[in-house]
């Protein structure tokens, strides 16, 4: 939010301005690499603009090779953009030298797909490492490490080595380590991709808790849609080095616009029609055919006995083909696919009836 021209920013106005400023902003960022041969350039990011709101959990999803890893590494300067700037907490990190980046990096925690814990150090010493690097004294390190191990539930494992831990425990150590220097931003590079679904859930729960308790901005990149669904407030879809779609998770997941988003979400949200239906589905109405309609429940009307009323008032015969209820960032999202013996006119009236109840419909096709 920009202040009107001429208005000076101070006091509460300044505070509000800072609060509104995104934690991370990518401005017209491009990044290209020389390919293996060295001659041709490979464009990883192409004039990308993107902002991560303060204290949000923002997910970037995309296929492998879409530029996700490059994007997240720009935030702590592990990669430099070819052009454009990356602003973290008001500082243009893309303009900083390696030595000027060091203090900035201490305010940005990072967790990794393969945890990247030092095998030669105990759990305690791994969490202590960023503090040692920052030159913190031994006593202050101890005062910091034990509460962090408590936070991630590993206080009893402080003298163990990473090789003695499970994958989920290793990532908990990774999280504790990333939090050791009190960062404002936490970067997660596919942090749950090497974990089983149950462990993934518990790690995501931990990230959510940290986000809520510490007000930390979390930026995750992942190719796992389940991760986004469970944890993200906001989601951005990257494809071909650009952000092709972004918004709050619920809207993007329930109303995906871009073809890439639709493809990525195809198996995650909503229902799958059984093959015997899809094989007989035709896009044009035929005499005597039943209309196949998807009814989408998003609002509080999800509890209304819609179908019963519909059958009753319109005298329709409804047949349920598929149904599912998802939970997307904590909100229910229901989909039901029904077939009804309705001609074009009746169908339009039936849809109007459903819309009046606050639900949405989509005609998928017609089956004989």
């Amino acid at each position: 939010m920009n202040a009107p021209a001429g208005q000076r920013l101070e006091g509460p106005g300044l505070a509000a301005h800072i609060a509104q400023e995104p934690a991370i902003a990518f401005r017209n960022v491009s990044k290209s690499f020389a390919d293996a041969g060295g001659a041709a350039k490979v464009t990883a990011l192409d004039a990308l603009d993107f902002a991560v709101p303060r204290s949000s959990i923002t997910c970037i999803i995309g296929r492998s090779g879409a530029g996700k890893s490059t994007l997240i590494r720009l935030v702590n300067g592990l990669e430099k953009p070819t052009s454009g700037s990356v602003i973290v907490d008001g500082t243009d990190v893309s303009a900083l030298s390696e030595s000027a980046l060091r203090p900035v990096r201490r305010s940005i925690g990072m967790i990794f797909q393969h945890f990247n814990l030092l095998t030669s150090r105990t759990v305690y010493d791994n969490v202590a490492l960023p503090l040692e690097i920052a030159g913190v004294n031994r006593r202050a390190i101890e005062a910091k490490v034990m509460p962090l191990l408590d936070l991630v539930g590993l206080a009893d494992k402080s003298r163990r080595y990473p090789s003695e831990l499970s994958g989920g425990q290793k990532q908990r150590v990774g999280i504790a380590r990333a939090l050791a220097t009190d960062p404002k931003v936490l970067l997660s590079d596919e942090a749950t991709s090497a974990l089983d679904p149950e462990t993934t859930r518990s790690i995501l729960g931990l990230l959510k808790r940290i986000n809520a308790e510490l007000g930390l901005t979390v930026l995750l990149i992942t190719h796992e849609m389940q991760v986004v669904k469970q944890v993200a407030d906001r989601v951005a879809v990257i494809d071909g080095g650009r952000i092709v779609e972004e918004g709050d998770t619920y809207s993007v997941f329930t109303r995906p616009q871009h073809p890439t988003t639709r493809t990525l979400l195809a198996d995650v949200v909503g229902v799958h029609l059984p093959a015997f239906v899809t094989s007989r589905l035709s896009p044009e109405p035929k005499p005597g055919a039943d209309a196949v309609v998807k009814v989408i429940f998003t609002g509080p009307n999800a509890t209304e006995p819609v179908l019963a009323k519909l059958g009753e008032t319109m005298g329709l015969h409804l047949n349920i083909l598929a149904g599912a209820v998802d939970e997307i960032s904590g909100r229910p999202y229901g989909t039901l696919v029904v077939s009804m013996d309705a001609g074009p006119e009746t169908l339009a009236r039936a849809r109007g009836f459903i819309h009046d109840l606050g639900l949405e419909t989509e005609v998928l096709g017609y089956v004989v």
Partner: protein
Amino acid sequence: MWFEILRLIVNATGETLYMVAVSALIGSLIGGPLGIFLATSRRGELFAAPAVNGILGIVVNATRSTPFIILVVAIIPFTRLVAGTSIGTSAAIVPLTIATIPFVARLIETAIRDVDPGLVEAARAMGATRLQIVSKVLIAEARPGITLGITLTVVSLIGYSAMVGAVGGGGLGDLGIRYGYQRFMPSVMLAVVVVLIVLVQIVQTVGDLLARHFDKRARRT
């Protein structure tokens, strides 16, 4: 007579240990950092200096491919400059050290290269300086490999030291050749070989134990 031979063996063992210890120590002190540099100075790495890396690589290879006995003779002027003489046990330390440096360097280079690059990335993300990355990540993580490399170096040095009899270096190898071979005393030869076997066995066992102690990675069974 037997007492005399025993005295010779004890003396020769002392000379061997002295030569091996000093050249292993100095060789590692120079070869270690060289190895770390070789492992981290290629394009895009921590201390990227591809040209220097290339030249050092060639020098290291050249030194390693020179047969040790030729190296001993070839660097006699240098040995005289450093040790003040080109004959005797102390003088023999010079060529032994020169041969050790590239040997250790390559072994330590390999050990450092084995460290997961993800750990270096994690340390960079924490804001570590390059020297902190070397000391807290690379050396710490490569300790088992470095230990085994130095063990191998010491074992090889025990073998090399047998050749410095050519310049009056003394030691067990020299004793074996002069008494066992030239004076037809196979029992001395046998005794020398037994002492060498025991020495190597001890060094290797200690090295293995140390490396095992340092290695906290999951053990494959």
